[in-house]
């Protein structure tokens, strides 16, 4: 099993009050499997995704990637795991504004020491980024930026892709095109995908759908 989440609980303090986001949530994602995570706004979808990425720690429960429990790891080890094994795609693209597209594309793969120039070139070609390689993020449209973000996430051939509403900021046609590319490339690399989405239509295109509601999965 690629990703295994066991009985995790997460809450936060707000205005002196403890708000429970979810409790006792468990899920798993296998290699090559694409799983949609849906739910109402505020249900904790993004938080769950962040816990899976090791960006946050659960209050209780375990998250394991490739059999390694994230909770047992320090900041440094989790950072290493993240750059080597996980590809992240955010709704806000979150490219590095100071680097041109080409550098953004290979950034994480280089960080992890896993850059494969042929594969990066292939990605750039498949994502239609070749003419944009010298540009900076601020010079790109939303769809173009998200394609760069997908390319960046895949360049290191990670085992797990975590995507947080990757098409949430895009119009339907652009969003569909981006999804086609994401699903196609994830399928080719054999990575697992956990994608947060509001769209039932997009969720239906994935292998499995999990719905987060009332503090638990259903």
């Amino acid at each position, binding site marked *: 099993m690629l990703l295994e989440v066991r009985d995790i609980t997460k809450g936060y303090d707000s205005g002196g009050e403890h708000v429970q986001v979810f409790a006792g949530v468990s899920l798993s994602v296998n290699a090559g499997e694409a799983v949609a995570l849906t739910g109402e706004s505020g249900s904790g979808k993004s938080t769950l995704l962040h816990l899976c990425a090791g960006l946050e720690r659960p209050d209780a429960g375990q998250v394991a990637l490739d059999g390694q429990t994230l909770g047992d790891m320090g900041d440094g080890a989790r950072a290493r795991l993240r750059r*080597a094994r996980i590809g992240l795609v955010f709704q806000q693209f979150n490219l590095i504004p100071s680097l041109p597209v080409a550098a953004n594309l290979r950034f994480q793969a280089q960080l992890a020491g896993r850059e494969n120039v042929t594969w990066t070139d292939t990605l750039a070609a498949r994502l239609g980024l070749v003419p944009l390689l010298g540009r900076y993020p601020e010079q790109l449209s939303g769809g173009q930026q998200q394609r760069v973000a997908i390319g960046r996430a895949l360049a290191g051939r990670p085992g797990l892709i975590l995507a*947080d509403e990757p098409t949430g900021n895009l119009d339907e046609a652009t969003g569909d095109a981006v999804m086609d590319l994401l699903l196609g490339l994830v399928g080719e690399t054999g990575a697992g995908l956990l994608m947060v989405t509001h769209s039932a239509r997009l969720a239906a295109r994935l292998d499995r759908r999990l719905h987060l509601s009332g503090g638990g999965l259903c």
Partner: protein
Amino acid sequence: MVRATLAALMAHWWRHPLQLVSLAVGLALATALWSGVQAINGQARDSYDRAAQLLGQNRFARIEAADGQRFGQARYIALRRAGWQVSPVLEGTWRDGDRRLRILGVDPVTAPPGAVPQTVTGGAGLRPFITPPGLAFAAPETAAALEPATGLPELRATAGLLPGVLVMDIGIAQNLLSAPGAVSRLIVAPEQPMGRPPLAEIAPDLVQRAPQARADISRLTDSFHLNLTAFGLLSFAVGLFIVHSAVGLAFEQRRTMFRTLRAIGVPLAVLTALLAVEMLMLALFAGLAGVALGYGIAAALLPDVAATLRGLYGAAVPGTLNLSPGWWLGGLAVALVGATAASAQSLWRVWRMPLLAPAQPRAWARASARSMVAQTGIAAGLALAAVALAMWGQSLVAGFALLGAMLLAAALALPGVLSALLGMAERAARGPLALWFWADTRQQLPGLSLALMALLLALAANVGVGTMVASFRLTFTGWLDQRLASELYVTAENEAQAARLREWLAPRSNAVLPIWSIEGSLAGAPGAVFGVADHATYRDNWPMLRMQPGGWDRVARGEAALINEQLMRQAGLVPGDMLRLPGGHTLPVAGVYSDYGNPRGEAMIGVDLLTTLYPQVPRLRHAIRADPAQAVALARSLVEEFGLPPDNVTDQARIKALSLGIFEQTFTVTAALNVLTMGVAGFAMLMSLLTLSTMRLPQLAPVWALGLTRARLARLELVRAVMLAALTMLLALPVGLLLAWALLAVVNVAAFGWRLPMHLFPADWARLTALALLAGGTAAAWPAWRLARTAPADLLKVFAHER
């Protein structure tokens, strides 16, 4: 609408208190340093005016000897008999150990109203004033310090008099100064009877001089005050950098708010006006704090300034502040002008912002990046102007214009140069992290450039002024060794004692060399003429810059004069030119000697010629050549034999220590202002980094998410600040050296009349580099620590678009 809009605008500051502090402190510091310097200058100028008024220099015409020396009071009596309404004044110096007092003898009966302080002519009554032993009026601090002194009339403390000055009846003064029947000048009453005979008929050797618009001392000290003003201006500019930076960021962060306010119906004019009002309110509060702080700075520095002015120029300035309401209002006005200047660009951008302009978070940075090209162009223009000024500028104003153009050019060029350097590093980078580091640093430049410019100015000023002072110290110490070759220096209490001293010393020493001088006008400015004995001491040791062959022989024969460098530059004299001495005698110039630390022009002639031309020259001071091993014993014998006060006999080492003490004090204020400017620059950097750190999360969060720890990111932030400080120091060094060159070769020459050789002090640069790195590291430490401690939840908000 106005109140609601203003409340909305001001709410920003409650949410960003650090920015408010940055802006207020920046403005307060800028105002404080500027108004502090102005307070010092104002106080000193006020003292000069009081001195001039006290001595009757600026309001009344005066009659004096053509050579500027004292003359017999028979001339005065002859003029009075001929109908001239004149009043005699005798001025001289009376020594009380190390302390020199200026004695002012006046005649209260004939003095025109206003020529003599009111306290002297009224109050105590004339009889005790004019009847021996007489009364002497002095400033309270002078009276208190002199209480136990003997040989003086009864002292009476009077507010309003200058420190170090004693006013007494002219008859009493003549006795005290051992100048019976002597008069320094006559004050001419404004109303004179018609038909009186012309001056030339009664006293052909006297001349009438018009009232002086400015006191002599004010002319001498102008350059000192100009130096202070320049430093005040530099500090003000550095402070304004902080304000500009804080205002720019505050406006940038509120772009979304501006757009929303305009979208819901606030007219652009109202919005802009309210922003201006907001700035003015902040400027008013910060300005008040700044003026109060400036008072504190001035009060702290004034005693040193007063000591410097006394030591270097003999100018009396009280060590306490007395400021007018005009100064307070002026300080506030400076704060308002500064705030307006610093916020003008931001206000203009708001004015020009289209209603539907996207509130891009990087718009400000991008606009700044665009202006970098224009800025570099202006820097190039200023650099060219600086080169032109260096080649052709001669005056003090040109010197300061050169400094200004050079510093401004360097500051404006800094972002462009740094950007180019960082771009080169980026291209050479291997590895994604290095690439990101350099690229991200380059992107941060617009936000940091103002703080870095302030740091550059402070560092360059530090290198420049440090090099100048250290060069001065090195040269001055060597020069003192040459100049103070004699083993002992002795001052007699009166002429009779001096004659006995010379007789007594003749068989007991190798040589007794007179140090006799008269004061008078040289090349139209206050100066002095010294008599020099024909002795190897001078021939072997005197620090000559230029000398004609046989120069010393011609001086000894009374056929030529030597002049100091100041007089050479003031009068444009070179060896071979004719020098006009006070009284009209002319001599060819045979050589030029260096005379560091002396603001006046001086000439040296043979001592025999001096006594011939000026028979009334005081002959009290002497240098004694003796066996160095016997010098201390000889000094003791002199004190015992003649009952001289111990302070009247000083050895070489003590005079050197005194001279170096005066020298060190001269630069105490400069050093203090230097440190303050560095402090302001360090503060600017801290504030910029702190403010930027809150805007940096969107750039740092993705890198963190992609696999870098917060601690590592924090370390990189620290390294970035230290590296930028190091690069800035690297660029500040040549600028500082150019500054030192301009100070030594242009400003000093124009201001003081002498030029110093420039020495380099790499150890000082290393110390300053360490200080710059420390400043950068310290300024970045807190923001970096905050980043390392930033909760992941805050970083994640970047991705959730909740910021």
